[in-house]
């Protein structure tokens, strides 16, 4: 059987894809909370920074961001006398994380804003500071609200990792392209690759579902 020979290289690619997904999802989550809360901040500087970040990264294309960081940033570095050349893995994680973080920030902001006004009043009556209220009262309640869109974003992120093959990172998409060049057996290779991505997406979605149940435990308890 021909196709069994493809399994090994493709699985190697899968592993890189998984690593990229994990790292960039972690980075994206941090950025999402930072910028999402930052957009709700009363500090005009923090707010402006968050809004700018969100708008720039949501308003442009991921591939443009990836190419900019890979091709243009080093040149900018030369201009200002800094070495801004990074390893492709770093560039890939950075671009993916920055991109997904901007979308996540809007999810965080929306969910926090959907916390009822009465919760903020109760917090005020107990004399919590604004920051404490945001992080201790509003955010934990908003968390379950965020999980379904976060799940979608994680799958989106997994799919987006395929683009890093274009800056020659050896992920699944890259391995597929290599194999195709070698064998011209496009149908078999790309069918296998599609199913591999599909499988990874299903697993990721299931994991996000578990996480959703976990952060929303207090919601499901009933008398």
């Amino acid at each position, binding site marked *: 059987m021909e196709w069994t020979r493809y399994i090994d290289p493709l699985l190697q690619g899968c592993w890189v894809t998984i690593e990229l997904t994990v790292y960039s999802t972690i980075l994206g989550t941090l950025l999402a909370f930072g910028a999402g809360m930052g957009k709700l901040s009363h500090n005009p500087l923090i707010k402006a920074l968050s809004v700018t970040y969100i708008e720039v990264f949501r308003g442009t294309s991921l591939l443009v961001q990836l190419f900019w960081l890979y091709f243009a940033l080093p040149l900018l570095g030369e201009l200002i006398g800094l070495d801004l050349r990074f390893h492709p893995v770093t560039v890939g994680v950075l671009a993916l994380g920055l991109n997904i973080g901007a979308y996540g920030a809007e999810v965080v902001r929306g969910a926090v804003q959907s916390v009822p006004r*009465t*919760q903020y009043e109760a917090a*005020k*009556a*107990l*004399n*919590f*500071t604004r920051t404490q209220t945001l992080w*201790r009262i509003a955010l934990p309640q908003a968390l379950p609200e965020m999980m379904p869109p976060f799940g979608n974003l994680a799958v989106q992120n997994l799919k987006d990792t395929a683009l890093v093959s274009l800056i020659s990172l050896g992920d699944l998409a890259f391995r597929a392209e290599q194999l195709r060049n070698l064998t011209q057996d496009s149908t078999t290779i790309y069918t296998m690759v599609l199913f591999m991505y599909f499988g990874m997406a299903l697993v990721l979605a299931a994991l996000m579902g578990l996480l959703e149940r976990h952060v929303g435990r*207090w919601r499901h308890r009933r008398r």
Partner: protein
Amino acid sequence: MNEPIIRCEGVVKRFGELTVLDHLDFTVDPGEKVTIIGPSGSGKSTVLRVLMTLERINEGVVYVDGEPLWHEQGAKGLEPASEAHLRKMRQKMGMVFQHFNLFPHMTVLRNLTEAPRYVLGLSPREARQRAEELLELVGLSDKAEAFPSQLSGGQQQRVAIARALAMRPKIMLFDEPTSALDPELVGEVLRVIRSLAEEHELTMLLVTHEMDFARRISDRVCFFDQGRILEQGPPEEIFSSPKEQRTREFLHAVLHPEE
């Protein structure tokens, strides 16, 4: 004679065109238990919310415990209060809401320990000890690890009372604490409030439609109408021989709703 612990002077509160508090003058003595009654929309909740600093006032001055609430003494007289001043003033008050407003993502115990720990800076042990005493007081020691959604309305409101008390306020504000409860659960909450009313130190302001209860626990009853106090006095006087026609009509409507 003691200085009043709450003094409202010519307080005006507007929501857009609507004047909700209309040059309200109102004082409460330390340790006094005052019940506020009156028709819906007369501004009862708004008074409590102004005291809790949940609503800003448009005119007038409110003094709490000798200091202006919404103002600070500046170089040239009274200036609008800073957040630091408001935080200092909030420390003196606790509020119990009609719909409890417990934090749904925290256990009962954490609802009671969170603010003492992070606002008052108590150690975890102190906060926990205080919480356990209060749960004992409201009769819910066995529910410490429960989430609010696992409790009945009456139990939730008792937790909410304990949560406010955990901050050791001088003044407790109750906004219709039993209005959202099923009738059979009203009693357990009123019993807790009555036990608090026996504390001489604690100043209490209670908005309620439970007239019998008001009669038994209050030192004074205030009848609110259109953002002012129309009539006030000892409960026997207000309930037995109200002077104002509006008060008589209101009491009649509340006590004999079927007529």
